[in-house]
């Protein structure tokens, strides 16, 4: 008499396949239904950071309160921030009275456990980092992930460092500088 199917060597394989298909199917449907919301949150968060990094410079130039610029984020973006096209990475210029008063670059690089993404805002002469923030990283919580905290961010502001410097902050700044050079030569 032949063995029941549940005792054949192929049964665990078939069982595992069925279970995998069922659960992956459920997850795919669930994720598909939530995807639009997740993407909307990511865009909001990105735009919020974009405005926050440029808001001090804009507030100084326009005299508009910084908080108001951040609160009216979409209007601030539409009025003052223009994307720069034609570059390999995202870049923006902050325009006031038809003149650029700051640039912002979206830079990406390798972290310890995965890739990182950050924004660097500079003055129009590319000599000074106005503001800096890491917005995506996969570092160890409590250790490398502290790269997003203010104490790290504050280290990055000020004059662009010497190309010979080797600290992690400097490496990030150098990546920002590399992003700036093509734009400066294009001007």
């Amino acid at each position, binding site marked *: 008499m032949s063995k029941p199917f549940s005792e054949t060597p192929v049964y665990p394989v078939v*069982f*595992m396949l069925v279970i995998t298909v069922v659960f992956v199917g459920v997850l795919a449907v669930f994720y598909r239904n939530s995807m639009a919301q997740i993407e909307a949150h990511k865009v909001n968060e990105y735009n919020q950071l974009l405005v926050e990094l440029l808001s001090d410079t804009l507030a100084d130039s326009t005299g508009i309160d910084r908080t108001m610029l951040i609160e009216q984020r979409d209007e601030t973006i539409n009025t003052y921030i223009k994307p720069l096209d034609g570059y390999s990475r995202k870049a923006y210029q902050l325009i006031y009275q038809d003149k650029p008063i700051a640039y912002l670059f979206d830079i990406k690089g390798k972290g310890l456990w995965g890739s990182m993404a950050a924004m660097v805002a500079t003055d129009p002469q590319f000599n000074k980092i106005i503001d800096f923030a890491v917005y995506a990283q996969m570092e160890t919580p409590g250790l490398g*992930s502290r790269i997003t905290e203010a104490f790290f961010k504050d280290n990055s502001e000020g004059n662009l460092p010497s190309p010979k410097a080797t600290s992690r902050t400097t490496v990030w700044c150098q990546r920002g500088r590399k992003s700036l050079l093509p734009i400066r030569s294009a001007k």
Partner: protein
Amino acid sequence: MTKKDIFINSAFRENSVWKQILGICSSLAVTNLMLNSLIMGLGVTFSLALANFTISALRTHTPRSVRMMVQTLIIAAYVIIVDVFLQANMPAISKQLGPYVGLIITNCILMGRAEAFAAQNNPIDSFIDGIGSGLGYTLVLLTIAAIRELFGFGSLFGIQILGDWWIRWSIMVMAPSAFFILAIFIWIINNKYYKVKA
């Protein structure tokens, strides 16, 4: 064992954290704020209860040779649901909890309860065991978080309790504080309820 006994056993007598010392990593990592701890605890409770239920419902059909893979797959599916739900509906909390939501998959409590209970009991009892274990874990998280948030930020669930006069204990915001609070907590519980007889 009655349903009530199963719940009390998994939540208190055999509490995963203070009795079995499981799930310590996340107990230490997310307890700087009570809200984060509550969401983490509820996430674990949801994943644990439903994973237990599913594993138990499939236990008679699951081949022994692949049971660990099946359990991991089921646990991972529920954890991913929690993770995606938080990303879609509570993005700020999702960001604060960071990778720890995803790491529920590797939380020893889930595999421990799947192997020790769900694989040998009926789905309803397994579900209750999951709820009990999850709530027991949440209780520990909230206790540690209450101490850390109160002394570290002067607040509970973000509501300011201590006034401006309070000088914040910065050590409480940092990870090491969770180590000694958890250690003191386990020491008190063990001394009071599980005193080893010589």
